[in-house]
């Protein structure tokens, strides 16, 4: 346990961001992620960084846009209703190809909803969230250790691909404490950013951060280019975990806290001799399509365990070309599925057997 400390998931994100070289944080209070802002408020002034409580989520994401334009690593964090407000800025960040790191510690919705954990912003985050054709890299940690590691990764990916990366967590992982080894985090230095608007020094043509393009053929080309970049990301950056999949005939797909509940259920099911495993997407976008596709013919049933009314299940069906049976095992509105509920779904699927 050499350098392990117990930390809340939210705090782990904040500290990992600082380790990743982020010196600018802008946010607006909202449960259940406020620990991130509180941590930054405490730390940033002591390390020459900026913590600023913005007047709104909208202002916060635009402050992020401003810092991102200057090439510095920058972040904001919020929870579901606040992310809706930020969606305008997320679209502009995408249109201007600016790197930014955003955290969504989800709570139940829609509307003001509740404050208990949820995964119902899956569509919103994996499809972009704001207007226009774009994606964000969406990272789904399932432990406090991953909250830290994926934060560092998030900053690196944002810089490498000049786009927003988002941590899609939920209230449980944000609030829980687990051991984390921050000393073990390795950070790649940020790349050169010749596009940054930091002043020309009267030595070069001016840089412009911009998402306006009034000539449709040009705007179309920008979209084509951006989607070529997305293809590279789909090829290179997919992350997932497989658990007991070697001989699995039933495949659970779950991310975040739902994946941990699912593991408990899988362990129980295995004791009963049921061949069930888990594919846990770590990147929700890009979605681990290929590994799921490879299970076609081996698995007869896919159980999507979600804390929503069933959103990821669409990607599961698409990835497997609708060639299996599909079961949604879910809770919503801030409720978390229990291992017993998942086990029951597994046993039911096992009774059905292969087609």
């Amino acid at each position: 346990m050499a350098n392990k400390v117990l930390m809340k998931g939210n705090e782990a994100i904040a500290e990992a961001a600082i380790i990743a070289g982020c010196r600018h944080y802008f946010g607006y209070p909202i449960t259940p992620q406020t620990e991130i802002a509180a941590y930054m408020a405490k730390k940033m002034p002591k390390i020459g960084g900026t913590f600023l409580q913005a007047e709104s989520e909208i202002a916060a994401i635009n402050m992020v846009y401003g810092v991102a334009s200057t090439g510095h690593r920058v972040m904001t964090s919020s929870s579901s209703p606040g992310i809706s407000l930020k969606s305008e800025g997320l679209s502009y960040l995408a249109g201007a190809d600016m790197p930014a790191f955003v955290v969504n510690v989800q709570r139940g919705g829609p509307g003001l909803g509740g404050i208990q954990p949820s995964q119902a912003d899956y569509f919103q985050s994996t499809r972009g969230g704001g207007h226009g054709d774009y994606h964000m890299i969406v990272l789904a940690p399932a432990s406090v250790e991953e909250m830290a590691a994926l934060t560092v990764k998030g900053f690196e990916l944002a810089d490498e691909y000049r786009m927003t990366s988002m941590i899609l967590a939920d209230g449980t992982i944000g609030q829980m404490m687990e051991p984390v080894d921050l000393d073990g985090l390795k950070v790649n230095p940020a790349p050169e950013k010749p596009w940054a608007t930091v002043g020309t020094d009267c030595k070069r043509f001016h840089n412009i951060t911009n998402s306006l393009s009034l000539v449709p053929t040009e705007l179309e080309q920008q979209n084509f280019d951006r989607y070529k970049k997305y293809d590279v990301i789909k090829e290179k950056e997919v992350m997932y975990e497989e658990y007991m999949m070697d001989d699995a005939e039933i495949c659970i797909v779950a991310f975040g806290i739902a994946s941990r509940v699912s593991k408990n259920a899988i362990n129980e099911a295995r004791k009963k001799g049921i061949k069930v495993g888990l594919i846990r997407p770590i990147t929700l976008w890009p979605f681990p399509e290929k590994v799921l596709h490879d299970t076609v013919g081996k698995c007869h049933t896919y159980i999507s365990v979600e804390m929503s009314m069933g959103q990821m299940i669409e990607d599961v069906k698409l990835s497997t070309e609708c060639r299996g049976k599909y079961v949604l095992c879910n809770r919503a509105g801030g409720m978390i599925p229990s291992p017993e509920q998942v086990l029951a779904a597994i046993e039911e699927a096992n009774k059905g057997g292969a087609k």
Partner: protein
Amino acid sequence: MSTNNYLFAGFGGQGILFAGKLLAYKGLIDEKQVSWLPSYGPEMRGGTASCSVIVSDTPVGSPIVSNPDTLIVMNLPSLDRYEDAVVPGGTIFMDSTLIERPVKRDDVTVYAVPATRLASENGIPTLANMILMGKVLSVMGEYPSDSVEAALGKVISARHADKLDINRRALQLGAEY
């Protein structure tokens, strides 16, 4: 290979989350896998507070404890709410100053400690939680132990180092009860 699931519950302000942290840190120091999950939100402000703690030899799956092996309760609503959730053969530790009724189940072991009364009699009225924890740890056969001492040092920040001694005394009181 074992996994121990603890559920702590009581009023906000009784130090429920703090007690849970002590156990989680002790687990970490003992090189176990641990998780600590609090209830959060408005109910923390004077309402019910609870936290799930898991200490395990294997990676922790779900951090949510719905059926604890060990229930540590410090008020009646919490006993009412969680008594039936304890696994058969499990253990309930309760503050008998604030919980006047006996535990109804006969398939669990019960330790009733008048922690709030002991705390106030000993001039440490805010440390009933640690008195109850003293009992928990001694029943576990873990009191006194180096890892408890080290965990105390972790949960009590350097800024409050002057509070270490009264916390030790509270643990001692509970352990000896």
